């Protein structure tokens, strides 16, 4: 792993990485000093969606399995963290990871039937799975039914144990740490033999199979890590907002499609593309939602309309995403894992 870090941090891209990391570490302090809660919250959401969009991209960008069902893993992660905290008093320091693991197990269980499907059939089935989970959680009383679950405010001395702080400032560091963890896990993974197997499956599943790669096995590996980190993203949601309900966490548009847009906007054939996409897309969405829609509540829905315009523009004008576009123009050193936009 150290070797990968040394390799990844050398060269110009490595310098960019160090600078960006430093800015990210200092930014919450600046937001806190200047009292900018909106900026801090937007940054937290950017990081949360970065974590999930990168995880999603392991399935789409690397393995070629377009999922519209990542809300399932997000929701399972969020609910697991909440239930452990609320019913069993387990600290979210542990609960977030347990949530990720439970989501990963759900992912493996879903992978067994879903990976028998290809291309758009897979995408359609993931939408249906998302709806099934939403409907089941709505009518499941143990998890609070349609009302959802809310964690109570805890006394001062338990704040660290229950990770309860005002505003988003502290949570940004939590999300940064988890994003760092994700980079440490996924970067060696995609640089390893498995990463190349996944790309071979993406390019041509039959050809990969004829070379002795078992597509199902490696799709399951991708699914495991994808669901794991998406579930961890759900855990961050729980500790920050202290409230989960099926309509919010299993939502097709505001979870699954948000992740998809962030990933595609950044560029699915780039390792860090989804992070770039999240940091471009989430602030726009948050700004329109908080400033424009709250000023003109009559036009509720406008923020999602704007997302539609963004998504349409990328789909038609730059299907390779921001990173792919920058690379094509020669503004970035070409990453080894990126290639031409694949034909079907």
């Amino acid at each position, binding site marked *: 792993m150290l070797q990968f870090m040394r390799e990844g941090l050398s060269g110009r891209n490595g310098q960019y990485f160090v600078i960006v990391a430093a800015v990210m570490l200092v930014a919450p302090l600046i937001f806190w000093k200047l009292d900018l809660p909106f900026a801090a919250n937007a940054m937290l959401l950017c990081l949360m969606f970065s974590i999930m969009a990168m995880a999603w991209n392991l399935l*789409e960008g690397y393995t070629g399995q*377009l999922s519209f069902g990542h809300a399932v893993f997000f929701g399972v992660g969020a609910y697991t963290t909440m239930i452990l905290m609320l019913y069993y008093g387990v600290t979210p320091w542990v609960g977030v990871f347990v949530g990720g693991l439970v989501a990963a197990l759900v992912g493996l269980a879903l992978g067994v*039937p879903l990976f*028998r*499907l290809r*291309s*758009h*059939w897979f*995408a*359609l*089935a993931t*939408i*249906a*799975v998302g*709806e*099934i989970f939403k*409907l*089941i959680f*709505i*009518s499941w009383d143990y998890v609070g039914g349609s009302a959802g679950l809310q964690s109570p405010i805890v006394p001062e001395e338990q704040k660290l144990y229950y990770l309860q702080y005002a505003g988003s400032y502290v949570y940004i560091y939590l999300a940064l740490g988890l994003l760092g963890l994700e980079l440490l896990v996924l970067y060696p993974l995609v640089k390893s033999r498995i990463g190349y197997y996944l790309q071979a499956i993406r390019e041509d599943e039959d050809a990969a199979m004829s070379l002795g790669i078992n597509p199902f096995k490696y799709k399951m590996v991708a699914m495991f890590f994808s669901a794991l980190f998406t579930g961890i993203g759900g855990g961050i949601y729980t500790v920050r907002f202290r409230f989960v309900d099926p309509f919010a966490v299993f939502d*097709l*548009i505001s979870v699954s*499609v948000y992740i*998809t*847009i962030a990933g*595609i906007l950044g560029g*699915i054939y780039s390792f860090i593309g989804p992070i770039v996409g999240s940091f471009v897309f989430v602030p726009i969405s948050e700004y329109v939602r908080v400033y424009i829609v709250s000023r003109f509540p*009559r*036009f*509720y*829905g*406008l*923020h*999602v*309309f704007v*997302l*539609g*315009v*963004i*998504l*349409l523009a*990328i*789909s*038609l004008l730059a*299907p390779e995403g921001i990173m792919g576009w920058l690379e094509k123009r020669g503004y970035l050193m070409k990453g080894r894992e990126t290639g031409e*936009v*694949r*034909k*079907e």
Partner: protein
Amino acid sequence: MIGLDYVANAVVSGILIGSVYSLVGMGLALIWGIMDVINFAQGDYMMLGAFVTYWAFTLAGVDPLLSVPLSFLVTFALGVLTQRVVIERVLDAPMVSQITATFAVLLMIRYGAEAAFGPYTKRIYVPYADVIYRFGTVSLQLPRLIAFSVSLGVAVAFYVFLKTTYTGVALRAVSQNRMAAYLMGINVRKMYWIAFGIGVGISAVGGTLVATFLPIHPEMGGFYALIAFIVVVFGGFGSVFGAYISGIIIGVTESVSALFISPSLKDVVAFLLFIAIILVKPTGLFGTEQR
């Protein structure tokens, strides 16, 4: 124990609501079959049909039945526009671009409508809304009966259109072999406009029919789009008439399963059925082998 009369009632009401599902599914199947594009925004064109009807009724007092052609024409025009501006440009693009492009259209229509009309549930009170006929233990609501008749009429008219007119034959030719049709002098591009226009127009008629007996709101399309996918998958890839039959089967399945399990879980049954079908026979009940 659930009595037989309940089951009979559920079957009948399933057939009636299923005929609306059929229309949405037929539109999706037409576009899918001819262009090999999955229109994720299908349910939202249906919602537009419902809202055209609502506004025609509220502002001008037009009876929903008279606004069937109106909602067809409005969404037909929008469909042709969508085809020209969006779909044409992603026809040969990778699958992910096609999906995200139609998804973008979905977001723009659904939330554009929400911003324009407000997120509230609306309802049309037609004068004949409460007329109920009883046949033994089975009771029929007049608006649902009308919806079924209109839906059947539209399906028959569409069948005749595809079989007898030049445009219909050309559409079928394009769906079978784009290049051969082009070489025979068929304007493929224009056929695609027509296919997308008719596809979303038929679904909009479904929206109009639903508006006479169910409340409507800008996000209603999401549910019907999922149902439409189930209908198409069940009826067979690109099979327009399979879609009609399977719409009714889905409607009946849904309303009968609501008798035996909690009504809030009745849609779970439909979605599980959907996944089961694509796993077992992705070509559907009435479809032919593809690829």
